[in-house]
């Protein structure tokens, strides 16, 4: 069987959903970040797949690099936020942080 574009897109979709599932469901904030990384990587795979099989040629690669860089920055800031949350709430269970509930 020939590996085509569709396989990569399906893979990316599956990864995306798993990542989304992780964001929505996981209690620990770090696990939410991991899910977020999964989402970003799924988007990356999508970009590269289109760069190879789609019509995007080099733009796909550039986009992937952008995403990786931004994911790294954003992970850094997210960890900083989680540190602050831990200092304030003494735990990082996101489903227990509901001060804006109302």
């Amino acid at each position, binding site marked *: 069987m020939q590996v085509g574009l569709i396989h990569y897109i399906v893979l990316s979709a599956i990864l995306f959903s798993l990542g*989304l599932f992780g*964001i*929505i*469901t996981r209690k620990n904030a770090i696990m*939410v970040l991991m899910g977020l990384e999964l989402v970003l990587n799924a988007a990356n795979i999508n970009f590269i797949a289109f760069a190879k099989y789609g019509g995007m040629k080099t733009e796909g690669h550039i986009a992937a690099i952008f995403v990786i860089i931004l994911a790294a920055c954003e992970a850094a800031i997210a960890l900083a936020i989680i540190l602050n949350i831990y200092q304030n709430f003494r735990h990082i269970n*996101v*489903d227990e*942080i*509901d*001060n*804006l*509930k*109302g």
Partner: protein
Amino acid sequence: MAHELILQLCIIVLLVPLVSFIINIFIGNKLGRISGIIGTSILGIDLVLAGILTFSKLVTYPDLPIIQNRIDWFSLGTSKITVGFGIDNITAIMLVVVTMISFLVHLFSTIYMEGDRRYPQYYGYLGLFTFSMLGIVLANNFLLMYVFWELVGISSYILIGFWYEKKSASDAGKKAFITNRIGDLGFFIGILILYFTYNSFMFDDIFAGISGGLMPFNNPAMLTAAGICIFMGAIGKSAQFPLHVWLPDAMEGPTPVSALIHAATMVAAGVYLITKVFVMFTADALTFIAVTGTITAFISATIAITQVDFKKVLAYSTVSQLGFMVMSLGVGGYTNGFFHLVTHAWFKAALFLAAGSVIHSMHHALHNMHDHHTDPQNINNMGGLRKTMPLTYITFIFVTFALSGVPFTSGFLSKDGILANTLAYANLAGGWHWIIPVLAFSAAGMTAFYMFRLTILAFHGEHRTEAAGHTKENKLPVVLPLVILAFLSVWIFYSPDPFNSSGGWFQKMVVQPESAVPAEYQWNFLLSENSDALSTTEHKIPESNLNAKEQEGNADRTRAVIQPETHRLNMFQEQSHHFHYTAMFISLLIAGLGILLAFAIYQFRVISAEKLENRFRFLHRFSYNKWYFDELYKSTVIGGTLVFSKLLALFDNYVIDGLVNLSSYLTRGFSYLTGLFDNYVIDGAVNMIASFTGYCGSRLRKLQTGRIQSYVLFVLIGILIIVYFFI
């Protein structure tokens, strides 16, 4: 003097005393003592003017029935109200009587009321009274007469209750006014009946209507009723039975007021009214009038016999003499009734002023002795005053002669004429009518008795108290009126013959007018031979070739009058002449007996007064207590009125107030129900909306979890929906 000038002079004579009223009431307090002088001089001017007026009427126009004017006052819808003033012979004479007595009373009061706190107001009210009385005298229509009638009533009320700090005086004023008002009610009803029938208030229009045959409500009995109703005004004003009770109480007022109002003028207003409208009375009405007058004369004469207050004796004497006048008019003695009014005015005013002089002296004597308890008006405290007050005594005894009917006085002429008239009347009318002369002669006899009793007890004998001994004669303004009035009671002024007044000017000037009532309702003996309806009567008077109706000058008047020179006497007047000497003889006899009895009991003490009192204890008490009229009225009329007013008060308190309270109770209940509705229904709806909103909010609030993961989930769902619907 032209007619217009005469009428203008009438208006001036009427209004001059009003000037005295205005000056004294408004600036009297600043004037002080001078207000009395001003009042007296204004009345003096009025007297002169009235004299000129009377002179011109009686001398220049003696035969004109009336000089009058008609003034359209106002209109009610389509009917015009006409009023006016007029002067005929009796008006002219009354003008002089009223102004002269008013002037003398003003003069007298300068001494009598000296030092009184409200001296200027007194003169003001005297002026008001004179103005009102002159209004009655000059009116030629019922409307103006009624207006002035009431004015006179109110002046009387004010003057009787002049010393209103004393409860008895203010009570007497109220009694006078209320009793008067009861009579005025009848008067008013009579006026209304006449206006409704004849559509005018003017005397001439009404008389013309009556002689034209129009009867009120087409019933001749209603004409009698109207006549009796009009007479009720005279019953009230002239103190006839049964409304005579106010006059003795009116003695609470100052004595000059009693002289002016309650002896000479106001009480004469009723008699004057009857003479003015004499022609409208039917035979039945005249009989009613005669009987009322006789009863009054008799009852009050019996009361006067036992009274011990100087003024009360004179008051009852006035009531009795008014009864005489009314009786005379009722039997048909028009001229003599009016003659007695005039002569009585002079000598009764003199008697009252003399009483004032005596009381004034006694008062001063008691005051100087620092005795404030003895009554200066009780004749038992007097005695022997003839020695200390000679001039008062002489005038008093002379006018007492006049009142008692002693010859050579004016009173003798008038009283004699009346008594002759009653005899003629009884003879012509027959049957039970004889009671009238019997009672009249008894009253005349009693008059002589009680007047001499009064004279002897007050003036003769010894001083019964020390105060009586300290009295002295009063000054000129007090004594002069007495002299003048006594002077006017001499027979000379009215007739040259001291025993018969027919030849005198008075009888010529004051001529009985032809009655306006159709002959079948009139006494046949009062008809003259010129009546058209003679054929319906039983007595035919022999045909005369004289025409007794003459119309002259003034086109306004419609009343016919029998000309003095050419008139033939009707049957009544012929019979009166026939009875003249009989009446004179009986009256002299009876007056002589009365005087003799008075002297026997009181002067010579031949018969003892105390023994008589004890023998006739019941009669004496009945007479002394005024026949218990006041007690009777108090228990019936006054008691009844009070009970009725209590019933009405109960009705007002329980029924009316009950209804008001009930409506307020209902309103409060209704408002309570509305409040409930407002609270539960309206507020409930509002609350329900609010709670619903809250409920929705509390449910929707659940969406705001505060957890980021939920928000991410919502965003995802939102994107899916958008992608589904738009792509």
